[in-house]
């Protein structure tokens, strides 16, 4: 039997249609398509894709179970290593992980592992049975701070081990970036809500509106001061603080951080204003500054809110853009205008509202610390771009509140919490993982960190070994 050279394409919403709605863009495989794509897997042994997966999912096995049409077995296989497959199947950068090292990819298109993962996960949501019963089989109370992928994963694993687990989240809705950042058309909040419901059904307590560091501290959690005493704490507080460019005019009306813009739209549902009370003001010519997923998400969201035009200003060229390929492709299909090798130098506007972005042309120089060519401004090449709104999407930094209010918790110069490969911090009984440790990274890495920490917490609580 010969292998199909090309991956089975993913059906998706037509670009001209989808810019007018917030529905998901890739529609997911139908059963036939999934079976066909599963056929393409060579079942390598050893399998490079497993190595390429940050949490080591047994990929050939789960694909094989799809091939055999035993979808329950397929999803069970994935869930042995990945608690949030419906999320990861949608947002993981597979092209630089499992799919990058796929043997088939040496000559043909690699197997669409992500699409198959999503298929199995969506199948479960529709047809599968999830057994959420967990006994309080073990003594021990664990506090999780932050409900992003790191915190939710740690919570789930620890609960399955039989511990009592409480998740504390400062927002009114759990999910972290998955609900406040990543837009509906890539990851519907409903997918995350479902995962959260499963956690609750397992007996995980979720306390929203709880700002740890203000309402009580991490030490209060460990000492049982004012709140119940916990035996261990996992910190998954993420990297949620927006950077600004620090340029003149940046506080003019009409300029948003991507975080504010996306939070208004995704978490607060401003795309349904005035049915929902939170407004967002976007329209006319919108310019998004940055080249990552956050920038693509912002530019594409702006289009869907009715912007006449939406452009991305990025200081390097496309090859260096950190956004996922799929996102860049989708953005292009939707008509996002890429202004590459340009960098803003100031924002101008007379009536307190932004009217122009002054930019300078850039060229690529020697590689910098990140290994990417350093962008260098071309002297005298400044020019004005007329705009009505600007979204700054140049990255996020770690949340300082918990480190600042926890004595002896060591942080790096960048403000990330220092943790060992097992997630142990400088303070006994406190683990950390996800973006708060690595700086802004990926969902799967945050999940992996949550898993690692959960198993180490279990080891520590059951062995009583010394902290190191």
């Amino acid at each position: 039997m010969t292998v199909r050279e090309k991956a089975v394409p993913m059906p998706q919403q037509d670009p001209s249609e989808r810019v007018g709605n917030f529905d998901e863009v890739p529609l997911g495989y139908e059963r036939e398509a999934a079976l066909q794509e599963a056929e393409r897997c060579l079942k390598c042994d050893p399998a490079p894709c497993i190595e390429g997966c940050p949490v080591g999912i047994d990929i050939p096995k789960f694909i094989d179970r799809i091939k055999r049409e035993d979808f329950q077995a397929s999803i069970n296989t994935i869930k042995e290593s990945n608690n949030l497959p419906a999320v990861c199947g949608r947002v993981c950068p597979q092209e630089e992980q499992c799919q990058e090292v796929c043997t088939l990819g040496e000559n043909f298109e690699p197997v669409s592992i992500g699409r198959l993962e999503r298929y199995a996960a969506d199948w479960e949501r529709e047809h599968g049975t999830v057994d959420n019963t967990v006994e309080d089989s073990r003594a021990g109370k664990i506090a999780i701070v932050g409900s992003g992928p790191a915190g939710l994963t740690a919570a789930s694993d620890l609960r399955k081990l039989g511990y009592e687990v409480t998740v504390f989240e400062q927002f009114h809705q759990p999910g972290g970036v998955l609900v406040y950042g990543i837009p509906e058309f890539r990851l519907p909040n409903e997918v995350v809500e479902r995962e959260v419901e499963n956690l609750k059904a397992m007996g995980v307590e979720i306390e929203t509106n709880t700002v740890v560091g203000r309402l009580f501290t991490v030490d209060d959690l460990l000492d049982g001061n004012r709140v119940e005493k916990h035996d261990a704490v996992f910190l998954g507080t993420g990297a949620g603080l927006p950077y600004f460019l620090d340029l003149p005019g940046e506080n003019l009306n009409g300029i948003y951080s991507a975080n504010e813009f996306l939070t208004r739209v995704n978490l607060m549902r401003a795309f349904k204003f005035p049915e929902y009370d939170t407004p967002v003001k976007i329209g006319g010519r919108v310019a998004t500054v940055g080249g990552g997923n956050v920038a693509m998400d912002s530019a594409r969201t702006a289009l869907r809110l009715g912007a006449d035009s939406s452009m991305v200003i990025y200081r390097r060229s496309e090859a260096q853009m950190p956004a996922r390929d799929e996102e860049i492709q989708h953005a292009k299909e939707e008509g996002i205008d890429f202004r590459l090798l340009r960098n803003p130098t100031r924002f101008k506007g007379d009536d307190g509202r932004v009217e122009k972005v002054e930019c300078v042309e850039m060229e690529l120089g020697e590689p910098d610390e990140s290994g990417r060519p350093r962008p260098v401004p071309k002297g005298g090449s400044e020019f004005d771009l007329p705009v009505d709104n600007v979204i700054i999407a140049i990255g996020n930094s770690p949340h300082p509140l918990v480190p600042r209010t926890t004595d002896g918790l060591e942080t790096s110069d960048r403000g990330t919490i220092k943790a060992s490969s097992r997630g142990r911090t400088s303070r006994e009984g406190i683990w950390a993982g996800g973006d708060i440790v690595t700086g802004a990274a990926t969902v799967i890495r945050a999940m992996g960190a949550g898993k690692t920490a959960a198993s180490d917490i279990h080891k520590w609580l059951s062995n009583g070994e010394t902290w190191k």
Partner: protein
Amino acid sequence: MRKIVKKSKVGDGVWEYELEAPLIAEASDPGQFVILRLHEKGERIPLTIADTSLEEGTITIVVQSAGKSTIELNQEYFEGEAIHDLAGPLGNPSEIEDYGTVALIGGGVGIALIYPIARALREAGNHVISIIGAQSADKLFFQDRIAEVSDEVIVTTDDGSAGREGFTSDALRDLLESENVEKSWAIGPVMMMKVCQEVAEEFDTELIVSLNTIMVDGTGMCGGCRVNINGETRFACVDGPEFPGSAVDFDLLAQRTEIYEEEEECALDEFLEGESK
């Protein structure tokens, strides 16, 4: 869900609420605020913690009808009912020390907001002079409570219907002319705070203002609340809300609170229309 334990009208369009929130009551200090969301479609609105009761396990907020959300709360939420979300305490507490003589200027709903600060300053040993002002007598409230925690109270109304006619800033000027005031706080509309700062500058005395920016998360994650302090961008929710008046760019503050004027009007119209049906 947070229960409204008590609700009472304190002035024209101004209501006071005691909300069940034992942990917040314990953790909060004067100058801090909460973020409240009325229902699942509601926005997150910042409101100052005006008082707390450890025995009752409640916090007090005082809410002035300003637009859709505040009017909805004041008109449609009653004792015994619950609001959906309440997060706090947020922001940094006021710096309470024994400074000597201090002046607290509260305009409009700001009257409620100076109350906990005045009380703490008095307890710390200060001689507290409060200046409270409103447009007219029917908009004044909390006079008794302010009196309880102040050594002197000066009342002003724009139209002279109570106390002396004029603005709180005029009363501040007269006060600074006659008294040696170590430090002052001014909380109220942007214009009032700006003018009070100008007066304080004339007398070379320190004035603290509390910045009521637009906010979303209230925890430093959006930058919607950004203000310019001594030429640098700061987030009012985590770096403030109090800042030295001399450092604040008030014009930028005023400009940024206007961002959603049209949308605010639209939301209010929709709401009132729904009401009248």
